């Protein structure tokens, strides 16, 4: 970060005054809970944010124990991540998955797994958010609610949709873009009909911004995706107000304190105007977007891990001031692993201390009207919109995905970030400034370096499970799913049927790919249960 400029390169004056910020109050800000929602999506409630920490490790049972532990610590929502195979639509017994099952998230591939995962979790009270593949989380949540006599209509929580960027950043589905987009839109449509309190579309700008993007780039790419998904849903004949109330955004929060607050304020305003002016949304809930945040893992260091606790706290203060609906702190051991028990404790306690001891929630949008913050919010907003326009002027965003434009973009930002840290343009205490010799750097190191062993037993168990199932109804359900893909029908009903017949996620994903005319297993190891000629 250059002196007196933000990470996005916005120049800052040392002092701001009345001439730096002017304009019509009601047009630019509005009161909290009023259009364009710059100052917050709700009138003052004093409730603070949903407090949660990233969880999921090992098998579903172990993750369930983790959830219950977090709930005893006072966590008010669940945030679940799958291991890398799960996140990539791959079953644990795939040859490429073997060494990583359950090590960086929970291994989930069949409905029984979700039953175990959410055993004893009150579905009608706990908000359940997950970054694991949305179609499968939604299908199982829906079925589970019915099994337990809970109306799916009361379910709360969110799943992420990431058709634009997942292939090139973090977790590849190895699917045609149009197919991934259709899966996302089917999930959103299904949720808005069957689970109207559940966010079937969380725009997750966190995961791709960890490719070294700055705040402006993060938000711009997010809005490019939101716009495209909304247009696609409208083209299906859906009413904007039938689904827009349940769009939410999950952003990153880096260490650039002021700019991150400005980013969140600007994103609320851009979203509101986009929905109202561009898409004609009339329901205020369609215009007011809830923003949840996961603090930046990339801002953390493996050196001097205790420093990460401070980073998480500072980011949490920023988010409290910005007014967010939920947050997770990337914990002190993030450089090595998903959170340990100890890191969970520290992460939640950090949120609770800031929430309960500092009076931070006593005033909404305390920066509102600040000459500096309003001027920075305007500038961040203008730059985000410029970048959205710039990207869209390069062509149909869907074609930009297929042509590799975003892949190149991410490679560029990754290289840039790597260089910024190397050159000291982005300072990280303990890593590129104020380092200490490894033998002195021991505080919290043992806990941070503790590994999670891969679950070789689960690999065997899933292989055996495949053989145990009644094959006839399973194959019938695969055939029906295959047929439905050829139509314009929403695929969720067919996916529910497969799920109840005991199908695994990897199989369903494979059938979808195959029906799309692409290989069942993109890695070339597995054969389709429907054979080759379908």
């Amino acid at each position, binding site marked *: 970060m250059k002196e007196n400029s933000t990470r996005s390169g916005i120049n800052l004056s040392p002092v701001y005054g009345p001439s730096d910020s002017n304009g019509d109050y009601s047009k630019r800000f509005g009161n909290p809970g009023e259009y364009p929602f710059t100052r917050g999506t709700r009138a003052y409630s004093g409730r603070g944010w949903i407090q949660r920490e990233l969880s999921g490790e090992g098998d579903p049972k172990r993750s369930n124990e983790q959830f219950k532990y977090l709930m005893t610590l006072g966590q008010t929502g669940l945030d679940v991540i799958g291991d890398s*195979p799960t996140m990539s639509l791959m079953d644990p017994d795939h040859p490429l998955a073997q*060494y990583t099952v359950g090590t960086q998230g929970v291994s989930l591939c069949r409905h029984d797994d979700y039953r175990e995962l959410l055993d004893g979790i009150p579905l009608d009270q706990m908000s359940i958010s997950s970054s694991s593949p949305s179609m499968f989380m939604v299908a199982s949540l829906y079925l589970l609610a019915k099994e337990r006599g809970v109306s799916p209509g009361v379910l709360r929580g969110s799943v992420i949709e990431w058709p634009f960027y997942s292939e090139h950043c*973090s977790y590849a589905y190895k699917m045609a873009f149009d197919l991934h987009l259709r899966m996302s839109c089917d999930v959103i449509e299904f949720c808005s009909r069957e689970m109207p309190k559940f966010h079937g579309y969380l725009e997750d700008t966190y995961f791709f911004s960890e490719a070294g993007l700055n705040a402006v780039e993060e938000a711009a790419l997010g809005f490019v995706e939101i716009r495209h998904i909304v247009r696609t849903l409208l083209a299906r004949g859906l009413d904007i107000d039938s689904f827009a109330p349940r769009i939410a955004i999950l952003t990153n929060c880096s260490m650039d304190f002021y700019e991150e607050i400005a980013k969140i304020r600007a994103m609320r305003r851009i979203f509101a105007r986009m929905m109202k002016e561009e898409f004609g949304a009339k329901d205020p809930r369609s215009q007011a977007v809830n923003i949840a945040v996961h603090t930046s893992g990339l801002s953390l260091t*493996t050196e001097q891990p205790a420093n990460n606790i401070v980073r998480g706290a500072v980011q949490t203060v920023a988010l409290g001031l910005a007014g967010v609906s939920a947050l997770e702190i990337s914990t002190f051991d993030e*450089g090595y692993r998903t959170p340990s028990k100890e890191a969970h404790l520290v992460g939640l306690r950090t949120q609770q201390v800031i929430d309960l001891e500092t009076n931070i929630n006593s005033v909404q949008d305390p920066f509102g009207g600040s000459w500096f913050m309003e001027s920075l919010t305007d500038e961040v907003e203008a730059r985000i919109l410029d970048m959205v326009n710039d990207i869209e002027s390069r062509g149909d965003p869907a074609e930009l995905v297929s042509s590799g434009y975003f892949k190149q973009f991410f490679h560029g930002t990754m290289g840039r970030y790597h260089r910024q840290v190397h050159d000291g343009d982005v300072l990280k205490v303990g890593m590129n400034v104020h380092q200490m010799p490894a033998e002195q750097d021991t505080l919290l190191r043992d806990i941070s370096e503790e590994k999670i062993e891969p679950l070789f037993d689960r690999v065997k168990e899933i292989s055996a499970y495949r053989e145990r199932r009644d094959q006839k109804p399973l194959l019938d359900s695969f055939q029906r799913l295959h047929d439905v893909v050829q139509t314009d029908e929403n695929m969720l009903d067919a996916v529910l049927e497969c799920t109840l017949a005991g199908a695994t996620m990897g199989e369903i994903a494979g059938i979808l790919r195959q029906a799309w005319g692409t290989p069942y297993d993109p*890695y070339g190891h597995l054969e389709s249960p429907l054979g080759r000629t379908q």
Partner: protein
Amino acid sequence: MKPIRVLVGVLGMDQHELGAIGIARMLRDQGMEVIYTGCFNTPETIVQAAMQEDADVIGISSHSWEYLYYTPELLDLLKQNDLDVPVVLGGSVITDEDAGKMLDKGVAAVFGSGSIVTDMIETVRNLADGAATS
């Protein structure tokens, strides 16, 4: 002089490419030829690419513990193919203790988080020169 050819890749289901891409760019800036193989590699695909591309050094970037299993497999496979190409590991998840284990198994060098890039470049250069003269 023939430029040094370095193969850079990520193994298994690890999909964190930032380190790999950062290093690939820096090696390129030094005039080296980088064959970037991206994610989803196995020891087999790395060895195949190293043979086809006539790599002087293999660089594996890791942000997942999968490297603990794949690296020994990769070293064995190189031996089976009579391929004398040094393997360099990099990544912030590699602890000092695990770095020691990997070096014992025959990895030529390990770079954890915060490693000095000039050291890495120097090491790659020396390894490539060593491989050329051996």
